[in-house]
């Protein structure tokens, strides 16, 4: 495809010139400072959030493991808890208190871990979303 001479000359003749170069760059520098400040603040918040998640994860695992060990180390013939009222269902609960407590604890730990993993994935997504990277290839 060849260029149209008349149009090319028109565009060339009407090429704009800018005399506010310094003002434009000063304005840009101010914006970049503001962006930099926000970015640093955001990164610090994300870092803190991530650390809190990791701490919660570790504390949850340790306390869960300790509680689980305590439950499993108690004598098998002694129930973990007893009820004052003696009904069929409550007697059954007291009889199987160890496996019930262990299962409930495992369930809570699993849900907690899933929630923490989800939160960490959200943080990673937030970081990626902040980076606007257009692909370019010629």
């Amino acid at each position, binding site marked *: *495809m060849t*260029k149209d001479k008349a149009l090319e000359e*028109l565009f060339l003749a009407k090429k704009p010139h800018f005399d506010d170069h310094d003002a434009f*760059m000063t304005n*840009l520098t101010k914006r970049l400072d503001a*962006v930099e400040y926000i970015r640093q603040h955001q990164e610090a918040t994300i870092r803190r959030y991530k650390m809190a998640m990791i701490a919660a994860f570790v504390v949850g695992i340790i306390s869960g493991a300790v509680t689980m060990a305590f439950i499993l180390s108690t004598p098998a013939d002694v129930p973990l808890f007893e009820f004052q009222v003696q009904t069929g269902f409550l007697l059954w609960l007291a009889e199987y208190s160890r496996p019930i407590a262990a299962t409930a604890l495992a369930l809570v730990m699993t849900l907690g871990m899933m929630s923490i993993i989800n939160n960490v994935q959200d943080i990673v997504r937030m970081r990626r979303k902040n*980076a*606007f990277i*257009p692909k*370019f290839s010629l």
Partner: protein
Amino acid sequence: MTREVFIAHVEHEQEALRSFLLALCCGNKSNADDLAQDALVKAYLSSAGYQDKGRFRSWLFKIAYNTFLNHKASSRTMETLDDARTLVSTTAADDSFEHQDLYLALRTLPPKERSSITLYYLSGYNIKEISAITETSEDAVKKQLSRGRDKLKEILKL
């Protein structure tokens, strides 16, 4: 890319970028400069992912083009008001008065045709490069250029 290197590149390319956006905004300088600033901030934020292959200007133009299209899409309801402003500005003796006929003619083109024409005639890119910047096929760029050129020649009576 460090901030200093980025600013050094921008110092070199800002006039070309602003000319491109001024043509896309049909002579509305404040709008063009706002878009240029937005595009440069976006470029700065993604400059960590930029691999220097000597194509900084093309990379910048691509971001500017997308910024312009996003702005155009979000401000569609203001088009009528903009039209009214342009009619008033033809009588004003501002700095860009001498370019008004070209800008008014460019205004009649759809944004994609306007972008292709501007990149081709003002910025000097070839069809392959325009296709990469605008993320359209080379055939589509050729069609946009052909249609845009015919319309401009008719309006400007060239």
